[in-house]
């Protein structure tokens, strides 16, 4: 295939959010109080860890052409169980295992509903989200539980070199995901699934099995995100996942406007996550009110999705 000449429009479509990110950093460096300091940049990194980890899980699912919103429930449930079990005096090892088992369980549930029973992924995962929120509420009775043991908190908060451990997890997971997707055969199949599932089936790849695995892996990553989020905050707040819900979606969709126009990808998601917290940090430095935060997030989501969908040329339908 011959290469098309690159027009300015293509560049905006493909790298629009990347430019916006750079411009935002420059803008805030000049205007926002104490934005461009090592401490603040580290804060941005730390704040975006659990968001970024969770967004990686969603990105895998998005690449395969489905969606999984169950993270909003899984994060909260994992947090509640983590804090609750530690309070009851269980060992951290056992607690970690239980947390991961929850991720495995919800991932399996998603996979069974979506791949085996063939339900639409959006609705099935929302149902799982509600189940998790209900379970969280029943487990912790709506009470915030704090974790006070510094040794346990250090799993995420300890300084490894210049950065906290949580940030390292984020980067390690990023490299793993990126390697899986671009350097292995399974990754190629996952990308192909999102492009044309029928072609993948024709070639003889077991598309259903891959899809099944994607949802299980995503469930595990969501549970890990909940684990990191709880230890980063130092306790399980009621419905912690609900607060992350829009940010995670926004990070993924910002990512679609960062590198590959219209397609979810890991580098884009990583930048998207940083971008979101850069904006929050910058606007807070400018003295923005707390209630404008969701406004800004909503607008960013709309703009970033609009950039990558406007040239689609026809209405996108939601099928049930």
């Amino acid at each position, binding site marked *: 295939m011959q290469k098309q000449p690159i027009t300015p429009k293509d560049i905006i479509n493909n790298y629009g959010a990347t430019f916006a990110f750079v411009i935002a950093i420059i803008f805030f460096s000049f205007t926002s109080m104490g934005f461009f300091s090592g401490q603040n940049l580290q804060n941005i990194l730390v704040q975006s860890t659990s968001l970024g980890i969770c967004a990686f899980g969603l990105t895998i699912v*998005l*690449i395969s*052409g*489905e*969606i999984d919103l169950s993270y909003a429930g899984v994060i909260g449930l994992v947090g509640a169980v983590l804090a609750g079990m530690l309070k009851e005096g269980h060992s951290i090892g056992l607690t970690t295992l239980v947390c991961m088992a929850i991720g495995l369980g919800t991932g399996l549930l998603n996979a069974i509903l979506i791949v085996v*029973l*063939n*339900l*639409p*992924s*959006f*609705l*099935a995962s929302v*149902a799982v989200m*509600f*189940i998790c*929120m*209900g379970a969280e*509420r*029943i487990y912790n009775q709506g009470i915030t539980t704090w974790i006070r043991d510094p040794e346990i908190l250090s799993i995420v908060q300890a300084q490894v070199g210049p950065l906290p451990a949580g940030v390292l997890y984020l980067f390690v997971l990023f490299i793993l995901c990126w390697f899986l997707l671009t350097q292995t055969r399974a990754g190629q199949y996952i990308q192909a699934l*999102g*492009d*044309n*599932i029928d072609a993948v089936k024709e070639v003889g790849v077991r598309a259903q099995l891959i899809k099944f695995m994607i949802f299980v892996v995503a469930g595990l990553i969501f549970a890990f995100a909940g684990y990191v989020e709880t230890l980063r905050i130092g306790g399980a707040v009621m419905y912690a996942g609900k607060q992350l819900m*829009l940010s995670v*979606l926004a990070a993924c*969709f910002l990512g*679609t406007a960062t590198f590959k126009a*219209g*397609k*979810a990808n890991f580098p884009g998601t990583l930048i998207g996550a940083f971008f979101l917290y850069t904006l929050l940090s910058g606007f807070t430095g400018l003295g923005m*009110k707390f*209630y*404008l*935060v*969701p*406004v*800004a*997030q*909503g*607008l960013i*989501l*709309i703009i970033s*999705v*609009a950039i990558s*969908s*406007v*040239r*689609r*040329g*026809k*209405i*996108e*339908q*939601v*099928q*049930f």
Partner: protein
Amino acid sequence: MSRSNSNATSLGHQDNGEIESGSQKGSSSLIRYGIFVIFGIFYVIVTILRPSFLSLGNLYDIFTEMSIISFVSFGEAIVIAAGGLDLSVGNVAGAAAMLACHLMSNLGYDIYTSLAAGVAIATLIGLGNGLMVTRLHMNSLIATLGTMFVLVGFLYGVTGGVSVHIIPENFEYLGNGTLFSIPIPMFVMAVVFVLAYLFVEKTSYGRNITMIGGNIEACRLSGVNIKKLTLLTFVICGFLSSFSGILLAARQAVGNVDLGERFLLEAFIAAMLGTVIFNGKNIITGTLIGAIFLTSMLNGLTLLGAGPQWMYLAQGALLLIAIMANYYSKRSAAKIT
């Protein structure tokens, strides 16, 4: 079906089937009649355990509640019929109610101006949603999710998170008053129901809207103006949401910021049940029945002393049943044609 496969956000499955009524037997009709049977059994159990369930006062309560959520459910059902989904309905209802309450209680405008302003703002937000979906080709889930969060922030910003308590008495009458011993919301509901029914079933607009959701390619080929009609569904949805919000504020006699948030789940459940009950036909009547099922279930559970977590669980289960029935009825229709 030539939906673009290349985009990563293609949600859901690609089913090509026109929805056909009647002739098929199978899992879909089983679930459909199952819903009626389950509710029949539920009503009997609740009535035996709590005889007050069937008292006149409680029935009034159920039907008033049902009337209030019916408007937003009709709107959501129309959007779903055209293949979209509006996640912002709850916040749109809240915005309309808060604006109306703010104008009449804090700024002293008369009740008609305030109500008109509330309805107008909701319709405008609906128009915005529709434009994002039809002009910018955004997925309606993402577009309305964005709207939802923008509205949450704005509502807090404008009101400072403070509830509006002082409400004129004739406004409260809208929610709690009766006419010929029938609650006012039921009158409004009856009028809106008839209009919505006539619009969807008896006009070419309405029939084309339901056709878009069934088979968008056929619509495109037969020259239906898909953009205009999809835009219209979102405008209608915004317009109807305001009724729910305003009447709920009137019933509670207080306007608070998160007033409409419960509407999203409730409207979605009622609308999905509505699509299922008559197998994709007659969605407005179906939605009304769905709304009755939902409110009576919540009411019955409250009488039985269930806590909020069980309410959520019951609503989630109901939603799942409705989705599965809807999906399987589409699939069996696709197999037959």
